[in-house]
């Protein structure tokens, strides 16, 4: 929709061109959320498109995804065969409420910075133990674990004007096994729970990532695949009974219930020996 309060568009060629930061400023990536609701408090959009960040960079260390990489581009990524967990990219993208047309514009960074509980790019990058590179307006940079970025529904650690530059997914987590479970109140709808388990090859560990059911991602590391009872206790220790997220996409008790159910399914799957493709 028209954002009628916007007075100016800035289109910098480098992020350094943006020095100050006013309360009505906002970074514009794909625009698919910004333009989907009235934004009466915003006055200036600062377009990231011309910064020209390479969308994807592959190295021995892993995969670097520019915040401005479109979801469509990431979806089309053709990973090295040893990165079995890269299949999570497509699986998570398919958990998005948004259709492929939105993916053509929406960015990975945009989905993360929106910081909705059901943000599937958050699920993806947290489950794969990514780190985010953040650029502050004073020119300093910091890196934080993906897990720590989202702090609540539609809330995150970004300071005013701070920019998510890129997401680094380490090769070691891309090489893991994984199991994903997901449910929605409607067919192909927004996630009520999106839960991912990963396991380091050759070990019996298990890393459980709970998203959508809770306001922010919750991750529980097990050195070995737990028993059913241990799993439930660990979930209860990590998420208080009132710690589930209620919205039109599912009641809190339902999300609590799904979390137990899917975590247990993931536990059982990862307790089985890996099937070689």
């Amino acid at each position: 929709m028209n954002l009628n309060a916007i007075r100016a568009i800035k289109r910098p060629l480098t992020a350094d061109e943006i020095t100050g930061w006013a309360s009505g400023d906002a970074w514009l990536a794909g625009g698919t959320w910004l333009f989907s609701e009235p934004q009466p408090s915003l006055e200036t959009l600062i377009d990231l498109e011309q910064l020209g960040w390479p969308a994807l960079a592959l190295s021995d260390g892993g995969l670097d995804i520019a915040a401005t990489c479109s979801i469509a581009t990431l979806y089309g990524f053709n990973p090295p065969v040893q990165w079995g967990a890269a299949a999570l990219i497509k699986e998570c993208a398919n958990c998005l409420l948004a259709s492929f047309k939105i993916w053509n514009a929406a960015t990975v960074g945009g989905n993360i910075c929106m910081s909705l509980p059901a943000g599937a790019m958050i699920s993806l990058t947290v489950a794969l133990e990514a780190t985010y590179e953040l650029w502050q307006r004073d020119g300093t940079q910091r890196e934080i674990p993906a897990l720590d970025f989202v702090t609540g529904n539609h809330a995150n650690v970004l300071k005013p004007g701070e920019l998510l530059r890129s997401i680094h997914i380490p090769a070691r987590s891309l090489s893991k096994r994984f199991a994903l479970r997901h449910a929605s109140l409607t067919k192909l709808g927004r996630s009520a729970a999106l839960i991912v388990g990963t396991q380091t090859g050759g070990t019996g560990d298990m890393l459980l990532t709970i998203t959508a059911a809770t306001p922010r991602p919750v991750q529980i590391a097990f050195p070995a695949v737990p028993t059913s009872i241990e799993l439930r206790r660990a979930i209860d220790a990590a998420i208080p009974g009132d710690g589930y997220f209620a919205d039109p996409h599912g009641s809190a008790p339902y999300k609590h219930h799904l979390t137990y159910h899917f975590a247990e399914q993931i536990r059982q799957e990862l307790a089985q020996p890996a099937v070689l493709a």
Partner: protein
Amino acid sequence: MTYLVDGKQISAEPHAGQCLRTFLRDFGSFGVKKGCDGGDCGACTVWLDGVPVHSCLTPAFRAAGREVTTIAGLAVDGVLHPMQQAFLDAQAFQCGFCTAGMIMTAASLDAERLQDLPHSLKGNLCRCTGYRSINDALHGRTSVEADVAGRACGASLPNPFGPSIVTGQAHYTMDVAVEGALHLKVLRSPHAHARIVAIDRQKALAVPGVAGIFTWEDVPRRLYSTATHEDHLVDPDDTYMLDNVVRFVGQRVAAVVAETEAAAEAACHLLDVTYEILPAVFDPVTAMEPDAPVLHDKGDAARGNIYVDIKGEVGSVLEGFAGADAVHEMTYSTSRVQHSHLETHGSIAWKDETGRLHVRTSSQAPFIAKQKLCHLFQMSPRDVHVFCERIGGGFGGKQEMISEDLCVLATLKIGRPVQWEFTREEQFIGATTRHQMTTRVKLGAKRDGTLTAIDVHVVSNTGAYGGHGGETLAAALGNPLTAYRCKNKRAEGYAVYTNIVPGGGFRGYGASQTTFAIESAMDDLARTLGIDPFAMRRLNMVRPGDWMESVWKDPSDVTFGSYGLDQCLDLVEDALSSGRGAEPPAGENWQSGTGVALAMLDCGPPTEHRSGAEMALLPDGRYHLAIGSTEMGNGSVTSHRQIAASVLSTRADQVAIINADTDLTPYDTGTFASTGTVVAGRAVDAAANALLDNILDFASRHTGAPTSECHLDDDEIVCGNRRMSLQDLWKAGHAVGHRFEAKRKAYLSPRTVAFNVHGIRLAVEKVTGEIRILQSVQAADIGRLINPMQCRGQIDGAIAMAIGWTLTENMMIDDHGAVINPAFRNYRIPAFADVPESEVHFADTYDAIGPLGAKSQGESAINPVAPAIANALANATGVRFAHLPLTPDRIFDRLSHDA
């Protein structure tokens, strides 16, 4: 900046925050629609350098220097894109408002995406078709039949506006550029109940471009109802155009008119309103308590918040229950839902050079809207013209006058054209909804299943205003009880004011709500008695020879023009036992079951309803048909042409039609209450027959052959052994001053009855609560099918709408009375993935009352679907879910305890 749009170069500077959708429309690309303006519905889909995007989410500046393709640019050199042709062949549209975006998406799909339509089409919503015809188009299936003279009636003929719909050339209400038009925006109340103490307009007036601000002090202090009916007394006059008391979150507080939408919006934000907060009540039962805050004090405050109560009894339910072997009693409830027609409400008003007022609007009842405008502004009817061009869906939501009045007010005050288009959010918070109803049903029966008593108690939450509150309540207490023969019936209903967004007319109109309750209860009673649900219904259902009555003793004008309920039950039972449909998913957590429900519909409303039609033979030998009724995707334009063509032994294509225009067509009450065929269609039938008589009479005089030897044959007339073209006949008539014209009116009495039976087989996952519909089958007794493809399409669409009501849709209201989910992303109308393909069967009946043997069908198909699903769920699980919607988070806990 330079843009290349559909091959044409445009040099322009968009506004900083402008999206591509409005930018394209500014330059006349009206094929780019607004369904939601938030990226959820896909109606605005265009291609950017060949890649499909939602133009409402695309910053306009980003398209500069790139190639933009809209629906209008898809055809090359006048040759339709194969996907446009496929949509025509399958008639994959009803109102056609979503079609441009649907085609732009479908035409972009590669082979891989075509294999996965549920994912590929999840970004495109259609409210009319139920997606079946869209699926047909994407599979290259053809549904249209040839237009053959004399065989128009009963043929699956295409919508005459199809070519303009698939090319984006069909002009919906807002698809015109009116020179000099001002834009209207309203400030809506943030409070559920408050008195407006003061409105300071100073800051708002200072916004550049603001041309006027109107509050309750500027409008005629004249009460009315926004609901449209022939008889204005059936709705309460409880509304002021703008009021100094607001009664729900979202009620209009003030209207701002400005040179741009942006200026009007900015000024709305700057209006400084002082409210005195009043106590609010949201629950209708609480609202009936003596100490509840009273919403309306307009002469009927003695009744408190009960707008209307309706009671009746035939026989004695006391005796009936005393004689029963089994009694079932339970309370069932249905949710508040929104029509979600893809085209939002909107109007454009202007005065011509003579001072006459014209209103272009999206209405199901332009003639009633005109009457209401004349009443509000004390204008003479001759000074007002109201008309519709093409309307993007209605479903009862446009049986209201809620956008015309403010545009007219502003035009009269300022003298310039004024337009106002609702946002999608406004549809949810400031339009109307289906009445939420809670229904207690008590049934008594003998051991063999024979009903001894039916007792129904309904509380309808009419929200802050009472339009349609009485009529929907009466409908709720009518047909669903009439459908069963039982000596003892009692019903009691209350329509109650609360501080919530108002109820209104909605496809199914009250009967849907109590059909859900009564059909669920019939199933529960059958289970208690160990009787098969089909057998239970056959034993008790109304049959020809029965006195049809609900709970009122006085005679009615409803009679059996035909009867096919027995056939419908057989058709559905056969289908469910046929083995067709999907297998239940594997796994011990999946349980499956079947369910059935029936519904009965009086064909037309009990209130007055009338329609007029004019026909003429044109100099070129074709026919002119003018009919007042609105076409909003229901297909009436197509079927009216077929009726006329059938009477005149010609092709539908020979009949040029205009409709829904208070200047150009005869009076029509409006297209609602399933009257498009049985009233307007009857008027067309009568006018066509009158014109036929006129033509034959003249031809007989002209040729000397007796009329008995004259007949029409397509575009010629045969008189004895002489054959001449209608063109020549017209010339001959014209030469002697003969006028080939006729006009007839139709009223609605007596009324016939239609029946629909729905069957469902489903599976439910008892841990996650997920429901999968494995088979959906409906049988309809709607008399002769004037256009079988359209009839099936109406039923497909009604089933999809019912599936939404049953499984996904629910307007959630917070503790302060505000709608929590006023956007499609949070209020899910069915997408392609949500709707299974249904089997649709028709009873073989020919009605003695309806025109050409046809009966009503626009609404009735929706009614049996929700209870059929709930009954199948009960059959699968042994648990009764009595409250809609049946979302997984509402059902998991009662299924999973033993998982």
